[in-house]
């Protein structure tokens, strides 16, 4: 006989499990319904590859290519900064730092993850942007580069902790085998440990990208928000997420503009879905190999 208390808990857990699935499906259905309405009078091609985002001119133009490229540029920049730094930090924490320092560093990284992105964005505006403006002699420091740097900091905790995990889980006997052959610690890390942890590293990078692509508030504040075709890191850009956040408030319900923002949501959804799928694939490939 189960006690009633346990019975209730069990059902509640089940219910919340089901609820979360239902919510996801509902959100997705809503997103699809609103977003796809745009394509009644707009071609998918013109939407994805149009070079002009003029949602409130007459006639409006809903080309999101500049936004897609803006997102890509900022994301690419963030990853180029965050991955080498994150990898180095993870190697240091997992393999090199003495025990006491390891714990301090790990809590530091968690603390970084706990800073709300709006706060990071704010700090970026008051410190990073003026700094970039001065050293590159720009009209404004609110640029793609500023966004990339801020996002790199945001993605770092994810990247570091997943890579660190996968390095720590590399079997100790690989390392011993390498050291016993006369390899130095660096040779061992570089030739054995990192290759053995490669699937975790790839997954970390994908999840880092996911974090960066989906980030809104910081980029909204710091990238300068100009929906123009980006050609350089030193110019203002506009990302997909920032567009939705900035314009949803003023888009008239049921208008083309309103539907277009939802369509952007679909694009974002597809992007994050693919990224998560890839990350998952890498993680599982890694596990599968270790079990064999």
């Amino acid at each position, binding site marked *: 006989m189960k006690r009633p208390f346990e019975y209730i808990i069990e059902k509640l857990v089940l219910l919340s499990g089901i609820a979360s699935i239902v919510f996801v499906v509902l959100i997705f259905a809503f997103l699809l319904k609103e977003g796809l309405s745009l394509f009644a009078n707009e071609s998918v091609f013109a939407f994805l590859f149009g070079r002009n985002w003029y949602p409130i001119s007459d006639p409006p133009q809903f080309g999101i290519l500049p936004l897609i490229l803006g997102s890509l540029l900022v994301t690419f920049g963030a990853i180029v900064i965050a991955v080498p730094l994150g990898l180095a930090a993870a190697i240091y924490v997992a393999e090199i730092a003495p025990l006491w320092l390891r714990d301090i560093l790990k809590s530091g990284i968690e603390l970084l993850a706990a800073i709300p992105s709006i706060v990071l964005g704010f700090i970026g505006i008051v410190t990073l942007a003026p700094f970039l403006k001065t050293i590159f002699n720009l009209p404004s420091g609110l640029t793609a580069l500023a966004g990339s740097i801020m996002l790199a900091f945001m993605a770092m905790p994810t990247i570091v902790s997943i890579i660190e995990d996968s390095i720590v889980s590399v*079997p100790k006997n690989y390392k011993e085998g390498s050291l*016993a052959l006369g390899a130095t610690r660096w040779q061992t890390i570089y030739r*054995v440990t990192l290759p*053995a942890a490669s699937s975790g590293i790839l997954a970390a990078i994908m999840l880092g990208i996911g974090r960066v692509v989906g980030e809104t508030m910081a980029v909204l504040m710091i990238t300068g928000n100009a929906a123009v075709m980006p050609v350089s890191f030193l110019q203002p850009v506009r990302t997909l997420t920032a567009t939705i956040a900035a314009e949803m408030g003023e888009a008239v319900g049921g208008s083309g503009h309103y539907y277009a923002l939802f369509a952007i949501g679909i694009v974002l959804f597809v992007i994050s879905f693919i990224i998560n799928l890839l990350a998952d694939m890498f993680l599982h490939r890694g596990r599968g190999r270790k079990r064999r």
Partner: protein
Amino acid sequence: MNNIITTDRLDLYYGAFQALINVGLNVEQNKITALIGPSGCGKSTLLRVFNRMNDLIEGVRTTGSVKVGGEEILGPGVDLVSLRKKVGMVFQRPNPFPLTIYENVVYGLRIHGEKDRKVLDQAVEKSLSSVLLFADLKDKLSSNALSLSLEQQQRLCIARLLAVLPEVLLMDEPCSALDPLATMRIEELMLELKKRYTIVIVTHNMQQAARISDECGFMLLGELVEFGPTKRIFTAPKDKRTEDYITGRFG
């Protein structure tokens, strides 16, 4: 007699725990020396002194003298890279790297700076031939080493050592993950290898020690109780504790 490893008054501490107590032994060149004794008596620890693998463990302190090829290997100034080239180690669980078979064999050469493809190719053929794997694997050198059977993996790990031209092979229960047939074949391989190398093997399997070793040491609670020719240890042990152990009157 040509001693390649000599220890004298060797003590080893894991923190406050003394794992080796006043160990003195001589390992002769081109012989198989076996270390036997119950689990936890310090066999692996002693073996790992010979290539300084205990250095990896925090809080280990080693005192006394250990000479390899006449040179002292304890102390801070020792070149661990060349020591570990000279004194290779085979582990209990086969531990090929998750790389190709080829890359496993040439790993040691690569880390010691060899880049010439011809030299590497030759080393692969020679080392794999020495462990009798070349005929079987020559067409699948680029497959992942983890796809091999455990016995093949262990042979590959031995080949990986041979590629860097060691003088001594340390083997820590190299057959404990293998089935009896594979064990027998690895033993044959060891008898073959001792013509060119010196082998020190740790085993909990007394029959194995009796079958393949020339010299044998019995360890108990960190002490080397008795050391001598295998035949004598097994037929006329001098110490009561050795006798109890080899006759099976022991925990």
